[in-house]
Structure formats: structure tokens, C-alpha cells
């Protein structure tokens, strides 16, 4: 077990930093194939392609020939007390063999129990029982996939009274025990911190920075007394500040801008991503313009309608 963990850790430590990437969305398929934009890499949602025998898979094959690709999933449900879904893992492995991603990631969450799926990234109980349970499932999944996996901190809207371990420590122990990598979603830290009264700076400071192979940035919806992670707009200033902090602490890792709802044209999406360059250093990052926050109360967390097929006639 220790040998395997060390092997996975070695692989995680040797992963490259491909630079600044974008999420591959069906809206941009034609644009990317026609214009070959200068994006460093693409992150693909595994579930959008793993069952496809049609256009999505056909497009992905072409894009994977031109760009480095990372596979990002939403259905592994590593925290669930249901057995691991081996059919899902099998399809994930088949897709990975075809696409040859730099790495495969999912979330520290559960999506359902008793064979149901809420299609949400639900918060895990953060205690020793849960840590042992999740670590054993990560080991199983990694051994099946024959590679280390990378886990992202989700945005959370509640915490449990029975939790005894702070999330940053839970992630640290998880990485130490299994050799997995971490995907630091800076926006999720900001959202969860606001919703659950913790300090996002402290959270990021206490993560194991050498295990972080990728960062996510995204926009969110402020609803007044809580924040929803909507991935539907520009990144806010406070998140960019956390990004600067994380960039300094990690020494710079692959960074991806998520945009899953109200998806703009490709150029606008790419331009927002490239802002990250301005925030890589403390000197430039902290001197950007102020912004006006907009409040709304009808936001939906983790929008997933982009995961449903988008026909092209």
C-alpha cells in the first residue's frame, strides 16, 4: 500500500505545468477546430464524452490531437457510502486510454447514496471515519485506473456539527495517505469561506502546496448573505487576490477558468483567463481596479445543464 502511494506521489510530483487552460464547451467546438486558438490546454468534463459515440467524442479526438487535455469528472462520488461505480470507472479508464489526459480529477464530495444520484457535489462529513472511508476508496479508484487521481475542494453551503477536521487538513491527510494530487479551486475556497465563516487566506496557507497540481478560478453569484458558485461570469477581485496568494505558495501550477452557464464567445472567455497573468505576482495583482458587486437570490449551485447533449443540426 505504501509502495503504491509513493509511486503515485512520484507521478504527481512529476506532472507538468501546461499553463493557462480553458474548459472545453460544446458552444466553442467549431471555433476551436477552425481557429486553433492559442490556449495552452483544455479541461474536458469526462461525463460529456465517456458515453458518446457521436459528435462530442469525435470532436474531443480532434482536440486531443492538437492540445494537452485534462479530464475532470463530476460523478466519481468518492465520498459516498455506496460501492464505487465500477461501470463508471471502466468508462473513465477507456476514455483516458483514448484521450491520454495529463491527469484525471474529480471532487471531494458525494453525489448520492442508495443508487440515486442528485447530480450535486454534496459536502462530505469531515471526521476520521469519513477520512478513512474516502482514503480507502481513493486507493481503490487509483489502483483500478492505474494512476493517481486529483481531487478538488468543492464549494460548500453547509458544514456538519459532527465534523471534527478542517477541510484543509482533511485534504492534506487525504493526499498524504493516498498519494493523490489536489486541485485547488480558489473560487470554491472563497465561496465556502463566506458561507461557512472561515478565513480563506488561512485555508490556502495551510494546504499541502506541493500536492497541488492545478487551480480553478471562476465567477460566482453573491446573494447577499450567502454566495452561490455559478460559474457564469467574470472572476471577482477577491478571488484574484486569493489566486495570487495560491500562485505564490504553489510556485505556479496549471490554472483553468471555469465557465459553465451564460457561456460567452470564445474570445471573451479566453481574455478573462489571460487576466491570470496579471495576478501571478503580488506587485501587479493587488493594484487592479475595484469592482461593483451585483446581488441576486435566484442562483443555482453547480449548474449542470451544460452536461446534457447540445445537438447541432
Amino acid at each position, binding site marked *: 500500500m505504501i509502495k503504491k502511494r509513493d509511486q503515485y506521489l512520484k507521478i504527481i510530483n512529476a506532472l507538468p505545468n501546461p499553463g493557462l487552460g480553458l474548459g472545453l464547451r460544446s458552444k466553442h467546438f467549431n471555433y476551436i477546430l477552425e481557429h486553433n486558438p492559442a490556449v495552452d490546454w483544455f479541461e474536458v468534463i469526462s461525463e460529456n464524452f465517456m458515453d458518446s459515440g457521436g459528435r462530442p467524442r469525435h470532436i474531443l479526438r480532434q482536440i486531443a490531437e492538437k492540445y494537452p487535455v485534462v479530464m475532470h469528472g463530476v460523478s466519481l*462520488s468518492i465520498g459516498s457510502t455506496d460501492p464505487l461505480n465500477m461501470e463508471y470507472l471502466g468508462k473513465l479508464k477507456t476514455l483516458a486510454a483514448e484521450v491520454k489526459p495529463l491527469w484525471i480529477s474529480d471532487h471531494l464530495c458525494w453525489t448520492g447514496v442508495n443508487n440515486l444520484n442528485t447530480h450535486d457535489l454534496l459536502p462530505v462529513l469531515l471526521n476520521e471515519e469519513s477520512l478513512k472511508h474516502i482514503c480507502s476508496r481513493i486507493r481503490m479508484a487509483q489502483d483500478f485506473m492505474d494512476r493517481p487521481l486529483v481531487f478538488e475542494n468543492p464549494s460548500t453551503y453547509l458544514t456538519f456539527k459532527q465534523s471534527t477536521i478542517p477541510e484543509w487538513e482533511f485534504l492534506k491527510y487525504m493526499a498524504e495517505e493516498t498519494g493523490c494530487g489536489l486541485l485547488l479551486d480558489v473560487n470554491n475556497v472563497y465561496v465556502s469561506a463566506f458561507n461557512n465563516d472561515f478565513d480563506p487566506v488561512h485555508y490556502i496557507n495551510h494546504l499541502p502546496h506541493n500536492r497541488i497540481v492545478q487551480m480553478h478560478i471562476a465567477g460566482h453569484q453573491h446573494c447577499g448573505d450567502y454566495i452561490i458558485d455559478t460559474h457564469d461570469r467574470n472572476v471577482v477581485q477577491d478571488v484574484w487576490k486569493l489566486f495570487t496568494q495560491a500562485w505564490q505558495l504553489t510556485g505556479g501550477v496549471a490554472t483553468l477558468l471555469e465557465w459553465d452557464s451564460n457561456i460567452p464567445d470564445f474570445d471573451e472567455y479566453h481574455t478573462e483567463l489571460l487576466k491570470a497573468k496579471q495576478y501571478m505576482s503580488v506587485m501587479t495583482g493587488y493594484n487592479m481596479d475595484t469592482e461593483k458587486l451585483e446581488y441576486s437570490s435566484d442562483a443555482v449551485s453547480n449548474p449542470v445543464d451544460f452536461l*446534457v447533449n447540445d445537438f447541432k443540426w
Partner: protein
Amino acid sequence: METKNITLHQLQNWMQGMLIKGSPSTDDRKVIEAVVNHSQRLSAMRHLNIYRSSYIARLRACLQNQFIALAYALGNDLFESFADQYLDSCPSESYTLNTLGEKLPAFLEQTRPDADLEQKESWPDFIIELAGFEYALSEIFDEQAAGDFTILTPDTPDNLLKVTPVLHLFSHHFPICQYYLDFLQHKEPELPFPEESYCAVSRRDYKLGLFVIRRAQYYFLKSMQEGRSVKKSMKYLAKNFEFKIEDLEKIWPEWKRNFITSGFLCV
């Protein structure tokens, strides 16, 4: 529920129940207070409600994406009402959202408002057929099949012709395909009257093509799908239906041209 020594499975079971079922009872509220932390700004209940309200809104939006013409035909409020009942009765059991609406046509059939009446209304039949057609389109879109076929010409000998693997034929009691096409072209179609209709759905270069076809064409292509040649399919139609072989032979060059153009045939 005992919350002090709650196990991981009990907690997940409880939380999932809170998301999927209706409004929490007074007893539920006590458990929520015992399981979920409140924060400076929100009560435990409001924290949980963020997940509860997003659950239904998120999946409803997915169904709306999957059944765009059905949502138009029913109108937004009625569609949401059906979607909410459906999600309550048939919560997702799959990791993929593409199958979220798989049981919707059967659900609409089971819950049709005139189920107990002897005299059935026609509009539920239309809604059920439309839902089935839209779900079938999403399956065809993702169907496993080779993408490239030899390009045919009207000169390709008939004895070499076969129907393409991704050709699906539909017969309906309502003009479903025409309604769907009119909807896509923003023609704002009205609920149609019953009318026997036939259509073919092909996929070329991974894009779907929808074609309203005639009854004779439907049975001819069905016959070819069952493995008969062009010649044998004509004989089959003449023997089993009211078509005359001379009429079929006369119309065949035009059919052949159209079938090739529409991507129905390959070699």
C-alpha cells in the same frame, strides 16, 4: 433520528432524503438543527435549503434542455409541474444526465390526466409521442457508429445499396417530426390534430438530419433495414401493402436520389 453518534451512511441517507423529498416537517427541523451548523448569517435550515432548492432547479433545467419542444408544447408552468413530479417519482439513478429523461415518456403515459376516463383526450397522446421522439433524438445523437461512409451517386448499382447504420424510422399518430421541425424554425406551431405520420432520422458527419417521409417510403426503408435488397423490398411492399410494383419502380429513381442526398443509404 439519533444524531449524536450518527454514522456516515445515516448522515448521507438523511441529507439525500432532505434534498429529494418535499418540505421538512417539524421533526425534520429539529434534526437539521442537530446535524447542520448555523453560521453568522444563516440558520441551519437556510444552509440546507441552498442545496434543496438547487437540486430541483438544476435537474429541471436539464430536462428542459433535453425536451425543448415538449417544454414549448406544454408551456413553461405545466412543463415544470410535470418535471417536478417526474423527478419526485423517478429520481436519477445514473451518473450521466443524458439519461435523466429516459423514463419521462412512460411517466407521462402513467400519469396522463384522463387515465381513468373511458373517453380519452388526444393531447396527452401527442405529448407522450413528442417526449418519446425527443428522447430518441438524444440517443441517436450519441449512438455508437462509424462516421464515414462511401459517398454514393444515383449511378451506384441498386444491388449494393444498404441503409446506413444510423438511420432511425418512426411512425406516429401525430405529425411529430413536422411539429419538431417547425418548433426549431421558430414557427411557433400549435398543438396538432391526430394524423398518421412517418419520419426518418439520419446522422451524417455526427449531425442529425430529420426528414418527414411518406408511408410507402417508411415501409420500404423498414424492409431494407430488415435486410432485404431494393428489389425484394419493392416486392415486399407490393405483397404486403396496397402498393403496385410498377408504381414503385417508376418512383424509385426519385426516391433513390433523395435517399442518397439525405444520407439514408450506403454500400
